[in-house]
């Protein structure tokens, strides 16, 4: 074997070990520079690190964006000092580079016009687009009041626009993260413990001895530090109990998987309480000291035996007891996880209440391995004049729901659709960072509302479905190209993180702070935007927090000491919960006063009729909702969703793996596209399952268009939570069509 010269060079370069050595050694032999680049491409790159936090979901992990000499963003790596990520981003955060690189991005402002009788968009300058928006805002304010302009938002752009809206006099604001997501649990836990769960959830998973997941599918739900801590819990030998009709990833890691019949969780929770109380397994000392309403609870759950629950949930009494004992055994280091996307069946606040009560019985709130007392830093507000007092706002729209604590998107929709008894008609929308078409149930209503508004602005980074309905589309630059508000979130220890631009905005895109400021100035609200660059705002705030922008650019994250006291209750500590009684409320007088059940009860929910299957959906670990499906880095990982079908169902319907099928729901709504069948034991025979976020129908999304089915379009029926207005999404049923129902119609 001949030792080639090239090999000799390689070895000697290795021997010297250095970066410089290998490049120069190669250069000495005058090799083709193109090849040189190939050999040393990863070694020679001089990266610049820019501090940011991730915007691919709302966990907001702090990270470093790495740019090379050519100022191209190459990779994003988690910040080691950050408690949200501990130096490890999730796949979506790592793939965040694709948000920036996606060549399908919105590139310039667009204005709707009619050319030859056909509606289309034309490119516009920022000045023109912003002038138009300002003039529309003014006219609507004159005729209907500023309140008639609604803001539907999600994520970072939201806060900038919220400031604009409040300055302008509108508090008609809502986001899907409430009524389609966390709302019920915040209300349920709020009513019980006097505290929201919040984000990140204050669950001490890493130290837990028993983690109970009710539907919550951590591992597919990639909320970062939670996934990390669940892994720690596995290492620590914690008992994991997963209640899920589907064999989720979490279920596969669990000691006990309870394959519950969908929509029956409250029955299971009640029977668990029954076991804990009847077998006297609950944390007596804790309950005596901190809780009220125990006797009522005891009397209430007496009848709810595991045998009773078996008939409803199909989970064997022995299994129910075994799980309850495991929880009690580990208590108080037991977490019955509150879940996050909890708008399921319309009685979700009550289910969340049941979860909260169960935690109360076990004593996990305020104990190690249970829930810790979270803390966050208050970021001082940059000085601005007081906001005007709007005549009405989201409160009034949600009046019907006494325990609603944030704007309800679906109520905004209702108030937009003209009707006779309209007290607070909405005339215009600004939508920022939420793809309402693929996010809100009852798509027809959303579109009806959109058709009814006089004027609609959408601020987005991508040509998502929602942008196609706008009168003006404004292209925001991605999170990697802008400053945003300081991240301050609740955690074990308070921390702040900054987002600074790694590169200049691509195309003609602009940050939301700039958009808000420019609109504000055109509306005569200069006083509220007393800065040239948002950088100044952050700088000011950071100085107040005892640091500086320069320092934060270098460290990205700053962790602070706790000031609110210990993480957990001390032995026999007196503690007042922020409930009316100052105690954990097993019995809720607040609910009783409003005519709701003070202690949760089980109610039966409709079941699929012959030929129909319950539409179950969830997260794909490598995607965030609809926003990443077109992401060039993430789309190849999973470019379409599949329809999970139990083999028994496949046999009955004669479905084969990868066969294309269409779905039709109980309201005869057809799926726009087809979906491939996955025959799998991981799903129950009474349901089908798919990942949420797919089935994009905007052709401008070149990678995502027409790939898979949108679960959202088949969710035409919701059961609204009477307590807080959440929209229960899991009560929809579909039948499976093997023939293309669109054969003769244009899609």
């Amino acid at each position, binding site marked *: *074997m001949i030792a*080639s010269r090239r090999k000799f060079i390689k070895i000697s370069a290795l021997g010297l070990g250095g970066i410089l050595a290998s490049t120069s050694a190669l250069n000495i032999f005058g090799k083709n520079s193109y090849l040189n680049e190939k050999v040393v491409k990863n070694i020679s790159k001089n990266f610049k690190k820019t501090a940011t936090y991730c915007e691919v979901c709302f966990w907001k992990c702090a990270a470093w964006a790495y740019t090379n000499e050519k100022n191209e963003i190459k990779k994003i790596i988690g910040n080691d000092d950050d408690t949200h990520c501990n130096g490890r981003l999730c796949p979506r955060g790592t793939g965040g580079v694709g948000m920036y690189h996606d060549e399908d991005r919105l590139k310039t402002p667009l204005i709707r016009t009619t050319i030859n009788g056909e509606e289309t968009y034309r490119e516009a300058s920022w000045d023109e687009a912003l002038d138009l928006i300002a003039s529309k805002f003014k006219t609507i304010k004159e005729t209907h009041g500023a309140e008639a302009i609604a803001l539907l938002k999600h994520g970072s752009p939201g806060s900038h626009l919220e400031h604009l809206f409040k300055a302008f006099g509108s508090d008609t604001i809502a986001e899907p993260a409430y009524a389609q997501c966390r709302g019920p649990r915040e209300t349920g836990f709020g009513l019980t413990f006097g505290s929201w769960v919040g984000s990140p959830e204050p669950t001490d998973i890493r130290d837990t001895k028993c983690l109970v997941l009710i539907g919550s599918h951590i591992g597919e739900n990639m909320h970062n530090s939670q996934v990390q801590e669940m892994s720690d819990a596995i290492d620590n030998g914690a008992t994991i109990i997963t209640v899920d009709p589907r064999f989720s990833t979490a279920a596969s890691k669990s000691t006990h998987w309870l394959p519950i019949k969908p929509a029956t969780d409250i029955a299971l929770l009640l029977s668990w309480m029954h076991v804990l109380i009847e077998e006297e397994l609950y944390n007596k000392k804790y309950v005596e000291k901190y809780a009220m309403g125990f006797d009522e609870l005891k009397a209430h759950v007496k009848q709810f035996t595991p045998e009773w629950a078996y008939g409803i949930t199909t989970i064997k009494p022995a299994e129910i007891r075994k799980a309850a004992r495991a929880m009690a055994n580990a208590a108080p280091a037991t977490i019955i996880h509150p879940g996050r996307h909890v708008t399921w069946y319309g009685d979700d606040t009550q289910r969340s209440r049941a979860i909260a009560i169960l935690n109360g019985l076990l004593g996990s709130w305020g104990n190690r391995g249970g829930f810790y007392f979270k803390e966050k830093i208050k970021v001082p507000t940059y000085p601005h004049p007081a906001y005007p007092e709007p005549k009405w706002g989201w409160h009034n729209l949600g009046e019907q729901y006494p325990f609603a604590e944030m704007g309800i998107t679906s109520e905004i929709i209702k108030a937009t659709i003209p009707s006779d008894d309209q007290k607070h008609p909405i005339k215009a929308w600004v939508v920022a960072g939420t793809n309402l078409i693929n996010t809100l149930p009852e798509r027809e209503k959303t579109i009806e509302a959109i058709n009814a508004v006089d004027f609609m602005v959408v601020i987005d980074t991508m040509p998502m479905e929602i942008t196609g309905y706008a009168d003006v589309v404004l292209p925001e630059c991605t999170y990697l190209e802008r400053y945003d508000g300081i991240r301050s979130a609740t955690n074990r220890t308070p921390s702040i993180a900054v987002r600074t631009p790694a590169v200049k905005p691509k195309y003609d895109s602009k940050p939301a702070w700039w958009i808000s400021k420019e609109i504000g100035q055109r509306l005569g609200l200069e006083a509220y935007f007393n800065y040239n660059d948002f950088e100044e705002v952050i700088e000011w705030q950071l100085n107040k927090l005892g640091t500086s922008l320069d320092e934060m650019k270098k460290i990205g994250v700053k962790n602070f000491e706790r000031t609110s006291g210990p993480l957990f209750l001390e032995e026999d500590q007196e503690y007042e919960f922020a409930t009316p009684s100052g105690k954990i409320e097993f019995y809720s007088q607040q609910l009783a006063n409003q005519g709701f059940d003070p202690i949760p009860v089980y109610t039966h929910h409709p079941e699929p009729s012959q030929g129909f299957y319950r539409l179950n959906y969830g997260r794909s670990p490598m995607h965030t909702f609809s926003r990443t499906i077109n992401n060039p880095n993430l789309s*190849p*990982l*999973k470019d379409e969703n599949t329809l999970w079908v139990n083999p028994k169902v496949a046999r009955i319907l004669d479905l084969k793996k990868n066969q294309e099928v269409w779905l039709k729901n109980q309201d005869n709504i057809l799926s726009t596209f087809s979906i491939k069948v*996955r025959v*799998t034991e991981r799903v129950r025979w009474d349901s089908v399952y798919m990942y949420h976020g797919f089935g994009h129908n905007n052709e401008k999304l070149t990678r995502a268009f027409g790939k898979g089915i949108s679960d959202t379009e088949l969710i035409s029926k919701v059961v609204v939570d009477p307590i807080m207005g959440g929209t229960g999404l899991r009560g929809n049923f579909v039948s499976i069509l093997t023939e293309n129902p669109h054969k003769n119609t244009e899609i």
Partner: protein
Amino acid sequence: MIQEELFTSGRNIPNIDPSLEIWHWPIAVYLFLGGLAAGILFFGALIYILGKEDTYPTAVKSASIIPPIALSLGLLALVYDLTHPLYTWQLYTTFRIESPMSWGAWVLLITTPLSFLWTFSYYREVYPKLEAKLKVFNRFNFLKTVEKFTIKNRKNIAYALIPLALILGVYTGILLSAFNARPLWNNAILGPLFLVSGLSTGAAAIILLSKTKAEKHLFGKIDLGLIIVELALITHMIMGYFSGSQVQLEAMQLLVNGDFTLMFFGFVVLLGLIIPGFLELLELLGFKVPVVVPALLVILGGLIFRFVMIEAGQLTRFLY
């Protein structure tokens, strides 16, 4: 029993997923041409050494035009299938004793020029009319020196060509059988099988070009013998799969009871071996058979055989 096995993150790598398509038709052609050339060179050299070139002139002289062309085309086909072809020269910066591909490259590097020389040494004898037209020898005087040299060294070249042809013939099979990862290929029979098949196509080519009855007769006999050996080897190969591991059983299904069954049993075994063998037998027994027919069938069968093996082999794997 595994119920379900799938890629979670969409692996969809070009030419690899869902099944390998790294080697395309040029590789099959390359292996076929290599075997054909090996066959002709082997018979030509052998007959020359035995001193029978006047009795069987086709094998030595006129058929010798095929190997250099076949080898050149084969090499071209190989290079055509490389994805980094500008670096082909890297094959010749090293000899990798464990790499069949390296063996092949070197054997071809030596065999191809030898086959050219061999053909060249007979150029004026076999193609006087062509030379009369082209008059290259008049134009380039040094050619005469070269010709003289080659004619003088024919015996040496022949001695070199016999082992080289055998290595080349075996190599076309070993190249595949060395791949442990492709259960269809991974058996010891493939080397001898491809060698025999190559010899058989070589013999068939000689029959096609031959003008004398004696020569046709001899190569008919040789070919028949080779066909019988080949059939035996194929049987052996199938038996081998039968007694093999699960993956080999699955691989065999492709040939025996799958997408390639018609191709394999219909075209390779029946049309490419049994029928021509039968026809050659009839001819030997004195029946009047146009020998072109079995010869062409053998050649075609040999080509299809390589296509089948390349295509089917890449469908077989260890995992998933």
